[in-house]
């Protein structure tokens, strides 16, 4: 006999088949002592399973996992394709399930010091999670929902492109990494440092880059921060607003192409090839290494060639 478990997705055998009725009846029976014995089998009460990391690992990979598991250490299951779900209630020091391509179900109640759960197959997280340090959920491209109750020191949801909203009650104390996520803002009560690829940015840069101005970017002294702003702003738009020195020009299938250089204080210059697509007539600006000096070399480099003589496009559309 099979039944659907509480999370409704996986078939699982019942926890126990017809144990002796006498043993567990008393604490769970609401009937008076004189009532006839129940005719259905009673399931004995099961507390949490306590296990060492090694035993817990073997248990989870065997597929016969308990509902409630307390691990006396770090649970490391990175890159494990056999792992499809974790217990509903899980407590451990460090949980590491990065790159588990079939892992769909994570705990509903989780207590851990840190959690590394990047690039899994998880779509929704629910329940109550308390992570004392960092919770890394980056690269979960199907993830749409975080637990209703979520507390962590730091949270990384970079590249979670379908995640458009954080829970209103989320509690984060240090930082939130958002590069490439679907987030368009923070819940109203949340005050946390926002990071884009590890660099602290403001809400405008993270969520409303269209409000930035090219001159704001040029005025940023910190190189790393300026690079992030430039990426958020878009090279096309930046070149359009600030122009650039034309250091070479020639023609290809799309018409005139130009190699532009934009000097930046304290950083290498931006060197970019501006080309017109022969099919769409759209202009594209593509950045190339700063030592390139001709359109031909730049176009060859973009196509993957170090030597310009190796790039001989027969047809370009």
């Amino acid at each position, binding site marked *: 006999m099979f039944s659907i478990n509480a999370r409704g997705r996986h078939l699982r055998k019942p926890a126990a088949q017809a144990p002796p009725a006498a043993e567990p009846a008393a604490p769970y029976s609401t009937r008076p002592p004189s009532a006839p014995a129940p005719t259905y089998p009673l399931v004995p009460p099961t507390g949490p399973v306590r296990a060492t990391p090694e035993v817990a690992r073997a248990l989870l990979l065997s597929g016969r996992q308990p509902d409630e598991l307390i691990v006396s250490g770090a649970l490391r299951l990175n890159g494990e394709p056999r792992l499809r779900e974790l217990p509903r209630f899980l407590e451990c020091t460090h949980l590491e399930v990065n790159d588990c391509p079939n892992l769909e179900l994570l705990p509903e109640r989780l207590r851990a010091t840190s959690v590394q759960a990047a690039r899994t197959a998880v779509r929704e997280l629910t329940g109550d999670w308390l992570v004392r340090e960092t919770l890394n959920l980056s690269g979960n491209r199907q993830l749409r929902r975080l637990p209703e109750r979520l507390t962590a020191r730091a949270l990384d949801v970079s590249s979670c492109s379908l995640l458009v909203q954080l829970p209103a009650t989320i509690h984060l104390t240090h930082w939130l990494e958002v590069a490439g996520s679907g987030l368009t803002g923070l819940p109203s009560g949340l005050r946390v440092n926002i990071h884009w690829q590890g660099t602290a940015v403001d809400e405008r840069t993270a969520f409303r880059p269209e409000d930035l101005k090219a001159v704001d970017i040029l005025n940023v002294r910190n190189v790393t921060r300026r*690079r992030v702003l430039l990426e958020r702003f878009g090279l096309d738009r930046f070149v359009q607003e600030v122009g650039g020195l034309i250091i070479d020009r020639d023609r290809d299938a799309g018409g005139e192409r130009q190699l532009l250089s934009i000097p930046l204080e304290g950083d290498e210059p931006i060197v970019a090839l501006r080309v017109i*697509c*022969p*099919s769409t007539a759209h202009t594209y600006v*593509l950045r190339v*290494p700063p030592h390139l000096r001709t359109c031909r070399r730049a176009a060859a*480099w973009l*196509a993957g060639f170090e030597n310009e003589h190796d*790039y001989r496009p027969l047809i370009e559309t």
Partner: protein
Amino acid sequence: MTQSPFQYRHGDVLIAPVAALPAGAVPRTGLVLAHGEHTGHSHRIRESGAASLYVYGKELYLLVSAPTATVVHEEHRPIELPVGVYRVWQQREYTPSAIRTVVD
């Protein structure tokens, strides 16, 4: 690898004839050479049955078995490829921290 005498460029996708499929190349389903990340468009072979894709490590190969196969995309003019074996890759772009594949 010996460079091809010439290449085809279809938007950000490059295609170059090669002598043969590498030994151990594994067939890949479908005829999509590259997906557009933002647009939902794709560079693909129009005629089913005219070609097949193979992967070898991180490299992609295209075997055109019919006399010709056509590379199409919503925004780019088609390119007809004659029978043969091709390597397929995407343009790259430079950033100070990493060199990346161009995505449209």
